[in-house]
């Protein structure tokens, strides 16, 4: 039993595309140590990784916080990027505004947000153009 909330915070470096994924790998390690099932860990890792990559590609980085309780794992991804002008469009599989150099790395397939929604039990997007985006994803345990 977890006493309260276990919280992990990561700075996602927007300059460094090569370290993208570092936070997800750390979270995965922590969750494994805490004894969560492989399927829960897999879902959290995928959702978190996609969110992390999005922050690097679109928002010059940000802060990722993961809150773990007995009932849920909540991922809060905050950035001060350009915001998402049309969330419904951004949620469509295959839609992407990523540039060619990002695509050549194997990203920009328009799968990021759809994957984040698919692998979490709930996802909330708060975004304002020119201000930034906060995405809250919950995986129920």
């Amino acid at each position, binding site marked *: 039993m977890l006493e309260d909330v276990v919280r992990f915070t990561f700075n996602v470096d927007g300059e460094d*595309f*090569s370290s*993208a*994924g*570092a936070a*997800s*790998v750390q979270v*995965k390690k922590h969750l494994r140590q805490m004894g969560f099932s*492989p399927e829960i860990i*897999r879902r959290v*890792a*995928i959702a978190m*990784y*996609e969110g992390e*990559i999005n922050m690097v590609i679109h928002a010059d980085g940000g802060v990722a916080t993961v809150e773990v309780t007995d009932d849920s794992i909540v991922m809060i991804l905050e950035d001060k990027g350009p915001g998402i002008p049309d969330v419904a469009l951004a949620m469509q599989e295959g839609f992407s505004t990523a540039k060619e150099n990002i695509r050549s*790395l*194997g*990203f920009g*397939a328009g*799968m*990021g947000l759809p*994957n984040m929604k*698919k*692998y979490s039990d709930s996802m909330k997007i708060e975004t304002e153009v020119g201000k930034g985006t906060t995405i809250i994803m919950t995986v129920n345990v």
Partner: protein
Amino acid sequence: MKDLQSIADSLGLTPLCGDLGKEVTGCYAGDLLSWVMSHAQYGDVWVTIMSNINVVAVASLTECACVIMAEGVMPDSEVLKVAKEKDITLFSDPRSTYELCCLVGKQLSENE
């Protein structure tokens, strides 16, 4: 299920890094990392023509058994270094993704 050592032996593959004591349960081909993230499974041989550092992160998160870089694609020294740290088994091979998947598939089905 088959062990990675026997698959590597039968395909004539030598690892660039990582160990061969892993179990292989399937095979997955893909270059779009988001797609691979959501579809590759634990224990898969992942065949790709991508070789950048993010391949290592995806391999680590999906816990695939190994990555085979097809068509002679080679990772650079930084990618190799990180792959070693994360205990990811990497191969590079001149054959195409299709050829490699066929060969892995044959090995896996022979075992059934």
